[in-house]
């Protein structure tokens, strides 16, 4: 199978669709290439969009603004099929602990089937929804405690190199620096709560994983493998199963190998996404490629470098540990003129060792979470983001303009700053679409007539998303604090910067006109309605009013690390009992 260069995934292509199987079968039966093209309406029915999630947050907080505990309940509208719904459901709870210090945490999640297109793993996979809920609630908590939302968050950031209440291992965390950078860049302290009526700023934060710690299809393969071939002309060929989907993974692969070998990216050929030719990589999803492929590439390149170093040290009569690889040369750090070209080092190594090649692979570290469901959420490194959004709201109509977005992202290290900024900007764009206008609306026709449930707007004219013309001023800040688990310190950037955007818009609307829109999209009619409620002296809020009663099964109890927990549940029924319960339930 050859993965051609193609457009972005954003989760919508993770599932295997029926029509894809049909095309493969048809190609086998006909012995000819077969192509299928969906029209836009069909894409709306099988694209696996983000789950609409109803959420209930019950959060304990001290008067100083420290969290004491949180109980999160989520209810997901799954649509007609499972898709990755089980993982999506776990994700609405799993990452709620890795941003702020949280001594106790309870999570109940439920996904229901409805007669709609199935939902699945859209960019941020299950995380943007609880992020919205928690960040908006924190804004409310800060308001009622009369604390500055930025200061309050700075006091509660989860510690680096720690294990959370639900046994997620945090590596580095530069969220504090992200908050400091966006508040400084936006002049937050002179704006929040101080702008004239109709103008406001809102802050929110988020965190995301640099690749899931476990594969969705359980197996014991490495998550990514890289092979390197060195040729006598000084060229290098790198093989990896990773799939370029426009995010620039080929560039990262080449860049890392060039950096380790001290050669130039122009001299490196890469062969990717071809199952005949390349070792495995699990795919371009879950913000995993830079970290996992990158670590595998560095390992392979370092192994290749060792052969070259040994041979070059002999030829140059320099201790191997004094040799460096840079500028297409191998040379003595103490006498840089004493050296040889990279090509000659390859020739020397080939003479000594025979044909040259090396391999590297990567598997994420084992997670301390050992309870059922603990496989969702672990990652070698979490990225962090903080965003401030500046808005103008017209009190007469509720018309909402986003004027500025400041977004700081803790990326560990930006291997290609241009591509990294592109990911941040794309995330902000997509986040604004979700915050301001995107919505899948279904309507039921009258029962006595057809009674059909139809997608209201399965077209890109009426399903509104912003265009470049609608983008605000965007101020992107990359915060670099290298993470020991990332290649050259790099963490993810493809999904994290999306997370704070929606709640930051909601919080900015509150700062501007004092009303709460507790759902997305945040549209002018909702703001107008909330302003009307405010004028009537009622609670100035538009959003879900209740969370339904759900008969939850007994929750697994996992003591947090500081209560002696070992990552396992203390009340997990064994498999036999679970099977017996299922059997009884069936009867």
């Amino acid at each position, binding site marked *: 199978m050859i993965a051609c260069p193609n457009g972005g995934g954003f989760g919508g292509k993770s599932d295997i669709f029926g029509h894809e199987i049909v095309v493969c079968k048809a190609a086998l039966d006909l012995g000819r290439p077969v192509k299928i093209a969906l*029209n836009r*309406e069909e894409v709306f029915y099988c694209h696996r969009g983000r789950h609409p999630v109803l959420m209930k947050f019950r959060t304990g907080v001290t008067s100083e603004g420290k969290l004491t505990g949180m109980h999160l309940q989520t209810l997901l509208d799954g649509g007609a099929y499972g898709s990755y719904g089980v993982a999506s459901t776990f994700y609405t709870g799993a990452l709620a602990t890795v941003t702020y210090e949280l001594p106790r945490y309870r999570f109940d999640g439920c996904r229901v089937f409805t007669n709609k297109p199935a939902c699945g793993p859209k960019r941020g996979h299950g995380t943007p929804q609880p992020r919205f809920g928690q960040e908006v609630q924190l804004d409310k908590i800060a308001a009622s405690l009369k604390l500055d939302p930025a200061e309050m968050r700075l006091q509660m950031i989860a510690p680096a190199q720690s294990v959370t209440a639900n046994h997620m291992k945090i590596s580095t965390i530069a969220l504090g620096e992200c908050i400091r950078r966006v508040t400084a860049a936006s002049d937050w302290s002179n704006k929040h709560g101080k702008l004239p009526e109709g103008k406001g700023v809102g802050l929110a934060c988020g965190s995301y994983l640099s690749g899931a710690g476990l594969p969705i299809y359980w197996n014991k393969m490495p998550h990514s493998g890289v092979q390197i071939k060195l040729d006598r002309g000084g060229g290098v060929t790198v093989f990896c199963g990773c799939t370029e989907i426009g995010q620039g993974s080929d560039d990262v692969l080449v860049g890392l190998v060039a950096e380790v070998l001290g050669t130039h990216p122009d001299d490196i050929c890469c062969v990717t996404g071809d199952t005949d030719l390349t070792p495995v990589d699990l795919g371009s999803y879950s913000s995993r490629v830079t970290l996992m492929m990158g670590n595998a590439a560095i390992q392979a390149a370092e192994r290749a470098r060792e052969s070259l170093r040994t041979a070059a040290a002999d030829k140059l009569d320099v201790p191997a540990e004094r040799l460096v690889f840079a500028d297409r040369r191998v040379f003595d750090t103490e006498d840089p003129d004493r050296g040889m070209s990279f090509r000659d080092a390859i020739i020397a190594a080939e003479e000594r060792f025979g044909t040259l090649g090396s391999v590297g692979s990567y598997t994420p570290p084992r997670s301390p979470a050992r309870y059922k469901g603990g496989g969702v959420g672990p990652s070698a490194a979490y990225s962090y983001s903080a965003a401030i959004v500046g808005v103008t709201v017209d009190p007469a109509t509720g018309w909402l303009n986003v004027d500025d977005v400041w977004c700081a992202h803790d990326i560990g290290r930006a291997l290609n700053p241009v591509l990294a900024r592109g990911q941040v900007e794309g995330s902000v764009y997509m986040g604004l679409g979700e915050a301001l206008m995107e919505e899948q609306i279904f309507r039921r026709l009258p029962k006595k007539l057809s009674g059909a449930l139809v997608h209201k*707007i*399965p077209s890109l004219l*009426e399903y*509104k998303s912003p265009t470049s013309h609608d983008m605000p001023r965007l101020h992107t800040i990359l915060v670099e604090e290298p993470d020991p688990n990332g290649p050259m310190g790099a963490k993810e950037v493809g999904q994290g910067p999306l997370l704070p955007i929606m709640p930051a818009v909601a919080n900015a609307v509150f700062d501007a006109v004092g009303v709460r829109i507790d759902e997305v999209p945040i549209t002018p009619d909702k703001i107008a309605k909330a302003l009307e409620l405010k004028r009537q002296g009622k609670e100035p809020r538009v959003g879900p009013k209740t969370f339904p009663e759900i008969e939850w099964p007994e929750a697994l109890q996992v003591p947090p690390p500081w209560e002696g927990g070992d990552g396992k549940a203390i009340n997990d029924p064994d498999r036999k009992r679970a099977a017996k319960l299922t059997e009884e339930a069936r009867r």
Partner: protein
Amino acid sequence: MMRLPRFDYHAPSTIAEAAEILAGEGPAAMLIAGGTDLLPNMKRRQQTPGTLVALRGIDELRQHDVETAGATLGAGLTLTDVVRNDDLRERYAGLWQAAVQVATPHLRNMGTLGGNLCLDTRCNYYDQNYEWRKAISFCMKKDGETCWVAPASKRCLAVSSTDTAPALASLDARVRLVSKEGSRELALLDLYKDDGIQYLSRRPDEILVSVSLPESSGWASTYWKLRRRGSFDFPVLSVAAAVKQAGDGTIEDARIVLGAVASAPRISEDGAACLIGNALTDESIDAAASRVATQSKPMDNTDFVLHWRKRVTAEFVRYALRELRGDPMGETRRRIAQHELIPL
């Protein structure tokens, strides 16, 4: 994939030739100018004409005459032609502001003034592909019997979504229609009927050939459009206003027209009456705005929720009239339209 149905294609080079073909083909033939409205509709099978008569090759339709005494515009001018004409922009600001807010630059390069005036009415139960419409047993406007917007309605409630019609109506424009039988001229507003299906009084054998505008001196005009995005989108409410002001600021004549709130543009004579004989004061503007807003009867068949569209009508009328008074509205324009929209 959605493909066009089969059709015969004629490309006449004169209006007379086109009228001849149209008369010969009967109602199964349709005119095509820029095709930006018709071709997507044909792909969705909302229209399946057996014959298309193309107007693109007819030079007469692209003639224009913008003199001090008025203006005559060929219906075949593209919207880009209209937008780039500085004389029009200076003298008929409302028309320019409407034309420049139609769709995107690409569509304005293809779409014509006549095409925008004859734009099919829109409704989100109708602007769907064939399979979607079939799934709801179709609607009254095409292939079905029920109006899903208001199942008790005897008539189709699809929305007039042209930007240039309200603007031109506020400017008291007239249009000329030509058929094999001859030619007739009528007030632009008489081209429209408040019926989502029979929304034009144009006969199938007639070609809309030109628009004429009266003398502009003493008049000032403006156009405000509500839509989700500043980049493109059909109007879900629009306000076109034109006033003739005496030297002392007294309004001698006024026309206020609403777009996208019914199946035809709606002129508010009551609203205009609140202005005539008065200066544009906050009081007269408020009075006019509330009168005009009573004409706004949107249905739940476009973008944005119905009650809010109705509710902001008065505010949009105020924007328009305050701009005509000379208030600085640039900031509001930028916020609503994402454009400055400054007339010359």
